[in-house]
Every structure is written in C-alpha cells, then in structure tokens.
C-alpha cells in the first residue's frame, strides 16, 4: 500500500516537473504575445524592423541549411566510405560545434574573419567585408549546425547494402547514375531530416550570431538578436510577439519532421 502511494506520488512529481518546465513557459510566451489582443500583436509583428528581421533570418538560415546539406553529404560520405589517415580524428571533430559554447563559436569566427586578423584584412583589401555582414552570419550558422547532416547521414550510409550498388553496376549503371538512382534515394530521409534540423537550429541561433551580426535592419539584424534587443529595451510584448512567430515556425518544422521521419531528431 505504502509503496503504491510512493510510486504514485513519484509519477505525479515527474509529470508535474515536465508540465511546469516545458509546457508552461511556452504558454507564457503565447499568452504574453497575444495578451493585448490581436491588434497590437499584429502591429508588433508587422513592424518593419521585426518583419525585416524575420525575413532575413529565414533567408540566411535556409542558405546555411543548404550549404550544410552539400558539405555534410560530402563529409559523411568520405568519413564512412574511405579509409585515410586522420579519419577517426575528423570523425570526433564533427561534434565539436555541439560541444563548444555557441558564444565561443561566434568569437572564433569573429577573430578569424574580423578586422584584426590576417584573413580579415586580406579579404577587406580585395573588397570582401565579411564580419558584421550577412556572409558572417551564414558562416556562423553553418558552423553551429554542421553536425546535423553528417550525423543523420552516417548511419544510413553504414547500413547501405554494398550489394545494392553492385547490383546496379552489373545492370550496366555507371557510378554517377548509381549514386543518383540507388544511393541518393536511400539517403534522402536522412538528408532531408538533417537539413531541416539544421534549418530550424539556424533559425533559432543566437550565441554564435550575436557577436558577428551588426544591427542593420534588413541586412544583419536577425530575429533572435532583435528579440534580445526588445527584451533589453524593456519591451517584452514586442519580443513575445516576434517570438510567437518564430516559435510557431519552429514547431511546425519540428512536427513536420516527426511526421515525415519518425524519431530521428538529434540534439
């Protein structure tokens, strides 16, 4: 009897923890964003600065996700298929962007490409300014989300039956055709899943971006930095309104992903 009571209260405690920690804050944001009614919400969201920030974020995140799709596919392929010196080292290194504090990641990119570095100066001298401009933001996003595509593709590549490829060769298909028709379709779920994850993470990224994004509306002011600015200037309602849009977008992505690919979400 006593044990059942204990078990029951433990279960309730866990569920309560879950509800309070995860569900409640989400409701708080939606509540605050819509607290003054539809009209002010709409005004906050359609404020030119907010709109620009949201649109810019979506564009840059999409670009970063696509770049990662290409780089990640190549990396996963080489890491799984080829044996070469340094392979294990590189394979461990893939996770570094996950393990590294994002602010440190941002600082690293700032230092590498910034006005004080050799590379930054060289690029500036040929007319390419990167830091405090959109390219730097994309680079930061690519850095932070690099592991997603690689880690989503690797298990699929390992599971791939080499006999399937060989079957394709014996049927007369060239290497390129085999890659396109036999290998790529098998990788597609992982590729899409990884790219979507990278996209949603890039949408949300703050730490790596805040140090290298300027505050130029429509050019370098991304949504998360905009929200931060609104919080800093004691405008929680506007912050919440933009957050609602960004959150809804992220949730839609998350649920699409779960619906499409089942349980393949990573960190």
């Amino acid at each position, binding site marked *: 009897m006593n044990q059942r009571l204990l078990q029951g209260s433990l279960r309730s405690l866990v569920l309560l923890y879950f509800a309070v920690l995860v569900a409640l804050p989400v409701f708080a944001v939606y509540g605050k964003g819509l607290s003054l009614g539809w009209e002010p919400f709409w005004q906050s969201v359609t404020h030119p600065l907010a709109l620009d920030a949201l649109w810019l974020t979506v564009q840059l995140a999409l670009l970063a996700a696509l770049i990662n799709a290409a780089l990640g596919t190549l990396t996963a392929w080489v890491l799984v298929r080829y044996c070469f010196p340094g392979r294990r080292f590189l394979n461990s290194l893939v996770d570094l962007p996950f393990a590294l504090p994002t602010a440190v990641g941002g600082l690293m990119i700032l230092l590498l490409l910034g006005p004080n570095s050799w590379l930054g100066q060289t690029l500036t001298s040929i007319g390419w300014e990167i830091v405090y401009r959109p390219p730097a933001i994309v680079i930061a996003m690519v850095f932070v989300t690099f592991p997603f595509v690689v880690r989503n593709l690797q298990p699929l590549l390992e599971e791939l039956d080499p006999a399937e490829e060989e079957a394709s*060769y*014996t049927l007369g298909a060239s290497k390129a055709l085999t890659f396109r028709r036999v290998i790529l379709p098998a990788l597609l779920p992982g590729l899409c899943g990884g790219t979507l994850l990278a996209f949603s993470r890039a949408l949300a990224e703050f730490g790596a971006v805040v140090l290298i994004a300027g505050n130029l509306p429509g050019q370098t002011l991304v949504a998360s930095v905009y929200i931060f600015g609104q919080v800093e200037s004691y405008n929680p309602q506007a912050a919440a309104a933009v957050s609602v849009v960004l959150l809804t977008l992220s949730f839609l992505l998350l649920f699409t992903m779960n619906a499409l690919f089942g349980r393949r979400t990573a960190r």
Partner: protein
Amino acid sequence: MHHLEVRDLNKKFGSLQAVEGVSFSVEQGRLIGLLGPSGGGKTTLLRMLAGLERPDGGAISIGGRNVDALPPQDRGIGFVFQNYALFKHMTVVENIAFGLKVKKWERARIYQRVAELLALTGLIGLERRYPHQLSGGQRQRVAFARALAPEPQLLLLDEPFAAIDAKVRKELRTWLKEMISRVGVTSLFVTHDQEEAVEVADEILIMSQGRLEQKGTPWEIYRAPKTPFIATFIGESTALHDLTTLAPFAEAAVSIANKASLEGHDELQAFVRPESIEISRSHERQPSSAALPGVVSHVQFRGDAWHVEVQVGAQRLTARRPLAYEPLSLGEEVSVLVHRLYLFAGQQSWIVENPFLSLQREKERIV
C-alpha cells in the same frame, strides 16, 4: 567454342589465397552448380566473373570475348545476390526496369519486356509493391527477373536460395531450372547444398580451399570422385582404416599400393559408399567367398531404408537395407557384401570392383 572460359584464375586477399589456379569452361545454355564448403572461394570466383573483384591473374572470356579489362557494367552478365539486393525504394516494376532504363531502351520496349518477365516469373499483381512488402520467395523472383531483364549472356547466382525456408526452396529450385532452360541463358549458381546441386545442375564444379577439385555431371562426380574430399562431400562415404579386413579387396589393394608407392605416394586412402554394401541374413543369400561375416551393431529406420551399421573385424561399416526386407536385430550375424570401393593416392584415384563378385557373375553366365 565454349561460351564461358576461365583460365588459371588467381585471387589473394592479403596472405589468404582465396582462389587458386582455377580453369574451366562452360558450354552455351548449361546450368552449372558451384559447390563447396564455406570459405572455399565460390563467391570470390563469381564476383571475379562479374567484374566486381579484380583477379590477381588469369583470363576470363564470355561469349568468345575477353572481358578482363571490362567493368561489370559492360560484361553483359546478370547477377543474383545472396540477399537479393533489391533496390529498397523502388517497386517491383522499377526494379525490373532499372537495367533497361540504364540501357536507354524505348519506353514501349521496356514496358513490353517487363510485362514479359512479370508473366514469366509469376509476379503479376505485385507490380506496385516495394521489396519489404514481398515474401522471401517473391523477392527471389524479382531479383531473378531484374537480372534477366537486360538479356545477359551469362547469369550468375550466389546462393539464390540461402535465405528461403526448406520447403519453398524445393519448389523454387525446380522453378529456377525450368526458367533457365526456357530462357536458355548460360548460368552459374553457388550453393552449399549438395542435394540442390545434384538435382538442379547440368554440371557441377566443386571448389575447396580456392581450388577447383572436380568438374562433371552429378552422376560422373558421384560415380568417380577424384579426391577423398569429394567422395565424402558428394554422397556419403565411410573411410576404411584397414584394408586387410576386407579380404576380397586385399589383393587389388596391395597391387595398387605398390604402384602408388613406386610413384612416391605412400598414403593410400580407401572409401566405401553405403549404397554399395549389401547386407543379408545367411539364409537370404548363398554363402560366397565375395562376402564377409559381420555383426549388426546398430539399426535405424531412415524413412526410405534401414540404416545399418555392422562390425566387420575391426572395421565398422555403414550400409542401407531396403525396407522390403525384414528388419535386422542387434547382435545378429550377417553376411556383408561390398560391391566396390574407391582408392586414392596423391592425384590418382581408382574404383575397385569386388573381384570375386565379377568372377561369380562370370561363372553364373557360363552355367
């Protein structure tokens, strides 16, 4: 002109000689069974024929054309993989049509060929299914149809029935034999199962430890195994330790042993098949100098015959006794008639018939 010719094929994996000096040839339209113990090099040989593995030495020609320099794409072969290797994300039809699309056939022609193969392999109604929605036997047939679709000159099958349960397997192998003879394509299939090879193949190649041990029709191989290994691998055989207990063969054995030792092989091995031993009660048969006295030490019912073990001197022999005869009992004294045995020394082999038996037959003929 042989359709497939293989000359002195060699392949090493590191220090392991997986295939060693294999040469053989196959005539157009034959179905060849490639048989041998696990790790014998069968898959390696097949993969070299397909161009999936590069030989260290030797030559392969298919249809009179040397293919050594050709990649698998251009060899005109069909390959059925052990676990089928169907394209998981393609339907049955897409799988079968793949090789045709690669060859850039016209749509109408592809359509017609696929329909033909679906009918031939009995897959009608399953066109739109994906591999994971098929049974093992159906997958096997899709793999077969896919390999056949581009009209290969040579069909290679690596343990096509390995992943299928025993009953379906029997049906499928008769089906396969029929199918191949109807299409008329020269085929090589790997199997572990000697019964399967004997039943299906026109000819059998036996490989062991990378070497080709013997090639011939199933009957030839059964009748005249070239090595002790084959004598035990195809059909059953009992090894004889001491030939002197088999008095009727002693003389022949000594003369062969002498011959062998002259040529430098002193080790003489002898085998006898259960089917060539006749066991009878004393009243069932006239006493003869061809037979030996023995004592029954074990009797077991085996469905189609009695499986009998008899002790003859120091040698225990295994024999069959038709069910039509009365069962024997343990400890009973019987007469054991050995019709023939196989002797091996080095590369040579002899089949020795029971001399008294032939003598006796001659006598009967004269009388």
